[in-house]
């Protein structure tokens, strides 16, 4: 009998088999925080927030800095430069929607860095049999991985939205406006959840297709960039605007517009969505989600099939 034998005891405690997706989420999320690139991107988020905060401060105090007609002239100059989100004459929905546009690139990159290795790493190191030799159902694993990838981008986006929205109200409106605008905040949160959830699902699915995070990341980028570039060209040349629904980013944008009701004339950087309708957009996002979940599930095979 080995001398270290005395360390082993029988386990007679409780076992909880209901929420096994949670450990998967936690242990997917935790290593993401150790990556330097993730923190560099988070600094990008913070810099963006800082710039917007300075913008709010400066435009709200413009009247104090510059007296009389000059301040109105300065405000018009700012608007002419395309910076249209500052000022009390636009809606909160427009502000929150326009905040999202430049952040989308950061969001992609964050999901890419966080999720490219989420499942490919498990496949590469033959970890799937370790997971599935336990009472873990495939949906536990799938939900756990997608949430693990989505938590950080979702947190960053939600924080950005609320931080900007609250500042906007604080600078230009009385406090009671927060309560009247609460539905807009909720809509913004739903949009962010849909956006992050979809992108994380796509990333997890590509990650499940490869044994290398690099390959999964490249495939993810190609998928989005290719569809975003090619589909509008195709739609324009055929004059079939519903074809834009083939591009999930365009469809997501239409959903965002439906939720936040922004004044698109005030936003110079909005995505051109042509005549793409909301039902087509919802069908597109739901269809892509189902497809990627199906692919992900198929790739969770523990046993390699011998041909």
């Amino acid at each position: 009998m080995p001398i270290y034998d005395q360390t082993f005891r029988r386990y007679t405690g409780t076992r909880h088999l209901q929420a096994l997706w949670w450990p998967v989420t936690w242990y997917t999320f935790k290593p993401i925080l150790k990556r330097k690139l993730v923190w560099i991107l988070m600094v990008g988020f913070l810099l963006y927030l800082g710039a917007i905060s300075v913008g709010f401060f400066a435009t709200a105090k413009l009247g104090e800095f510059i007296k009389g007609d000059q301040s109105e002239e300065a405000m018009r100059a700012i608007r002419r430069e395309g910076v249209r989100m500052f000022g009390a004459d636009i809606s909160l929905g427009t502000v929150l929607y326009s905040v999202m546009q430049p952040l989308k690139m950061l969001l992609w990159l964050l999901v890419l860095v966080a999720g490219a290795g989420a499942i490919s790493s498990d496949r590469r190191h033959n970890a799937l049999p370790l997971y599935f030799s336990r009472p873990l159902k495939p949906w536990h694993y799938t939900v756990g991985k997608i949430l693990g990838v989505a938590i950080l981008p979702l947190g960053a986006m939600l924080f950005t939205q609320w931080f900007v929205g609250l500042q906007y109200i604080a600078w230009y409106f009385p406090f009671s406006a927060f309560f009247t605008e609460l539905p807009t905040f909720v809509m913004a949160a739903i949009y962010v959840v849909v956006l992050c959830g979809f992108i994380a699902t796509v990333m997890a699915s590509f990650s499940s297709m490869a044994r290398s995070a690099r390959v999964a990341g490249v495939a993810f980028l190609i998928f989005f960039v290719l569809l975003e570039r090619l589909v509008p060209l195709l739609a324009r040349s055929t004059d079939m605007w519903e074809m834009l629904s083939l591009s999930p980013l365009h469809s997501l944008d239409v959903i965002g517009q439906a939720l936040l009701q922004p004044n698109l004339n005030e936003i110079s950087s909005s995505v051109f969505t042509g005549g793409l309708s909301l039902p087509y957009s919802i069908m597109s996002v739901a269809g892509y989600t189902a497809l990627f979940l199906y692919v992900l599930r198929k790739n969770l095979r523990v046993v390699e099939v011998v041909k």
Partner: protein
Amino acid sequence: MLMLIDLDNLDVGYGSKAVLSGVTLRFEKGVAGLLGPNGAGKSTLLKTLMGFLRPLGGNARVFDLPVPERAMEVRSRIGYMPETESFIPGMSTVQFVAYMAQLSGLPNDAAMERAHEVLQYVGLGEARYRNLETYSLGMKQRAKLAQAIVHDPALLLLDEPTNGMDPEGRREMLELVEDLAQNKGMSIILCSHLLHDVENVADQVIVLGNGRVVSKQVRDHAQAATDEDVIYLVRVRNNRDEFLQELTGRGIEAKPAPDVADGVLVAIPPGEPGTRVLFAAASQAGTLVRRLEQRRERLEDIFVKAVGELGNAHL
């Protein structure tokens, strides 16, 4: 008594390729050695027991539960140590083992406590804060064993547990397996192509070849002494061939010893006349017995014989 594993005429395959055919086995408790050459279907059998593969025919029950229909309940009571190098990179070993415990339903605190304990038990106490990717192959094997036992399973499925280990590491690993079975009350299925591993720890040996059960042996030495042939290595001074002929003529199974030039392996049936017949045969063959050494029938003989028979049957 509850039958841990009950397989009835089981056929398993990948697509149209049959890997196991007509496997019938029963296993109550203890250590069962699953022995066979590479590709015999050992790992496939383990995967079937966990419900990873759906049988093409026959029935499989584990803990009296049908698999794969009730695989989740089965999986909550087994521990599995895969053959391949399997781990989750980017975390310390203690975190990895605690994670695996949580996936078996243990609460967070208990999982971490158990992770420390089992890593100490398998001899990785000093190295438990290191990441798994920095481990040697032998250490990774120990870590795999730790994750398999951390949730205190009733049945442990070990697939080639001594792969890549040095002789000392192998001995310690087999000691742990023996201890888990004898003192910790776990039943174990030890899958190996190494005769020595199975011979040392298993009390029931199942030899698989070409997807079929070739031989089932209960390694009960007391029974072997009374019911089975006793094997002797007999070394004679000269006339070995005449001695062999004389024994065969008397209806005794005998063959030249492969590794001893003047040796003959003789299987003496239990009871009378015992070894006296050897001396009588030697006298008749005009030679003298120089040395008489009793050998229990080694598993190697069973294995080689069983797989050899299977090969002949296919010719």
